[in-house]
């Protein structure tokens, strides 16, 4: 086996290179698009003559992708498993291998096209939820949520946005700047000030790193507590995310998040700068997780490119998918 793996590794050297260049070229695109493109390309280049052979090659490439330094998001593994699922499922429909391969390539292209249009589609769907004069609370830096807000503003809607600072990486600052440059009224607040402002907020909107099987989400740390505050204030909590973020995992508590999170996903262990500058006794443990899990009962609706879904609709989609 070891003799066969070495040529495979050199044979698949283009994968990381290709994946890396695609990501570097456009940092704004979701990671799923280059992943699907690489997988489609792999099928195109494949010398395999059987379905099993093709699937094995794909598995190797997926492992390379998952192990590479560019893998920064859970959605990579979910889009890969989606692709594999599709490959196995389609295998039953086509008795001739060449037809099968051709269909896969075509569908792969469609999938990457769909993923790239997903944000536009979500923006259109979510536009109906944005009314003049409302105030929306945004947490973290989500490109989908940003797309939704900027699109609605471009449609002529006038609304206010409150952005949380979103420590530890202070990504909320980036969100606020982006919104401000789009001409939207923004206010940046501390993470601890969420409940202080919640009575002024009409609803919460955030993105997601992954949507899990029960309709809950994994997202930037702090999302869970905001959802709890929103529920206490009886404010809707909306999530905007593309459908390739559907992940086949079922976290039961917060500790399960660690196991879902890919080891390669780089998380800075530091807290904020001010804290790290302080003298601290050696015995003081500092923990700074990057993600938390928000259970479905705290989520009102999810805006996805499959439509506006209730959390229970998500599990339905996933069951349909992997059944």
């Amino acid at each position, binding site marked *: 086996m070891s003799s066969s793996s070495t040529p495979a590794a050199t044979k698949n050297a283009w994968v990381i290179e290709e994946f890396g260049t695609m990501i570097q070229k456009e940092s704004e695109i979701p990671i799923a698009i280059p992943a699907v493109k690489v997988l489609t390309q792999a099928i195109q280049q494949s010398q395999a003559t059987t379905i099993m052979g093709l699937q094995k090659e794909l598995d190797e490439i997926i492992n390379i992708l998952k192990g590479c330094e560019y893998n920064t998001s859970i959605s990579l593994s979910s889009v890969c498993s989606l692709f594999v699922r*599709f490959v196995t499922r389609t295998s039953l429909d086509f008795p001739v291998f060449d037809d099968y391969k051709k269909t896969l390539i075509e569908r792969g292209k469609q999938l990457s096209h769909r993923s790239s249009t997903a944000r536009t589609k979500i923006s259109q769907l979510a536009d109906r939820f944005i009314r003049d004069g409302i105030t929306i609370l945004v947490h973290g830096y989500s490109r989908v949520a940003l797309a939704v807000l900027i699109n609605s503003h471009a449609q002529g809607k006038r609304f206010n946005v409150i952005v949380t600072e979103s420590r530890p990486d202070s990504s909320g600052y980036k969100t606020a700047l982006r919104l401000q440059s789009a001409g939207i009224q923004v206010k940046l607040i501390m993470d601890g000030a969420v409940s202080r402002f919640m009575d002024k907020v009409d609803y919460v909107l955030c993105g997601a790193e992954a949507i899990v099987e029960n309709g809950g989400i994994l997202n930037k740390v702090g999302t869970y507590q905001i959802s709890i505050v929103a529920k206490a204030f009886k404010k809707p909590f909306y999530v905007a995310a593309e459908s390739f973020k559907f992940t086949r995992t079922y976290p039961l508590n917060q500790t399960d998040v660690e196991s879902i999170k890919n080891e390669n996903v780089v998380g800075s262990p530091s807290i904020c700068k001010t804290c790290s500058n302080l003298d601290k006794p050696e015995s003081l443990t500092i923990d700074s997780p990057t993600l938390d899990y928000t259970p479905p009962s705290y989520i009102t*609706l999810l805006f996805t490119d499959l439509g506006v879904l*209730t959390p229970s*609709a998500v599990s339905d989609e996933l069951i349909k998918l992997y059944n």
Partner: protein
Amino acid sequence: MDEINLETFILHLKRKVVAGSFHVSQKTAQVLRHYISISKWPNAKVIIDQIKSIGKRLIDAQPLEFCIGNIVRRVLFIIREEYITLKRNLPNLIRLDSSKNNLLTYEDPDTIDYSSHIPTLKSQVIEAIGELIEEMKGLHKNVAEHAIEHIHSNEIIMTFGCSRTVEQFLVEAARKRKFGVIVVESAPSLEGRKTALTLSKNPNIDVTLIPDSAIFALMSRVNKVIIGTHAVMANGGLIAPSGTHSLVVAAKYHSVPIVVCTGLYKLCPLYAYDQDTFNDFGSPGEYLKFQEAEYLVNVHSYNPSFDYIPPELVSLFITNNGGHNPSYIYRLLQEYYDPRDMLEDDDEDVNNNNNNNNNNSEISQK
């Protein structure tokens, strides 16, 4: 002929000659069936576009009568379904996957071509709409069939307003069981009195009429709240006559289950975001006499027609195809409507423009 039929119907809608969800839906289905059968159309695409533009005019005539839009969407869905089934039976055409909205079916719905000419389509569509009309006729009975499972002997049921579906539901249960019904008067329309009168004729139902203000006081002795609704929204929330929300909140406080009886034609693929999204103001004349108004010069008076009730307050929907949880509503939507037929304002501006032109020309003719 069809144009006259359509125009009079629109006029009737505007003047509320035809009113009440049930009658409006029936009539809408009939008018659309008539239009489809009488007009000439070469393929499904043409008739879908025509029905869409007619649908928009009907909705504009009475925007808060959600069932008009629902029936139009059902009819469009029927046309699409029949077309695809017939087309699939034709040789040399691609097989279409029936599971809609799936992540793995990469059939882009927009790419389905509806322009093939299929001669049998018309009769099939007309027949299917006929089935829809029949289904609606039997709807109250179908809902009432579930009554025995939900109402037990000696229970106390609270109900609100005047809903034919609920009335028949209670009457059906009373054939086998004896129970009490507390009817809320439902100010300002006072329609609850009508319900109380109808139910009181049944020897097995012990009817009590109460004012709206007594809801909370009596809730502790109620076993179940059974209400009707004006519309069911896509998330499982309700648009119901105003006053219903306070009833439902009182029931929630006492952990009394809230059962909503409704026909599926009231299922609406739109989202209500808050109390103002879909609401209407009625005349304050229902509770404030015109003669008294002069003493109340500095008083504002509002009479909102509807309440939006969020889905988490509803325990169960009983529909003509069985009982459903509010979180299951989205599934029913997928079964009955096509996502392309949302019929919202920003859908197709071209159609709107055509409509406006049509309307203008009609006005100038008059």
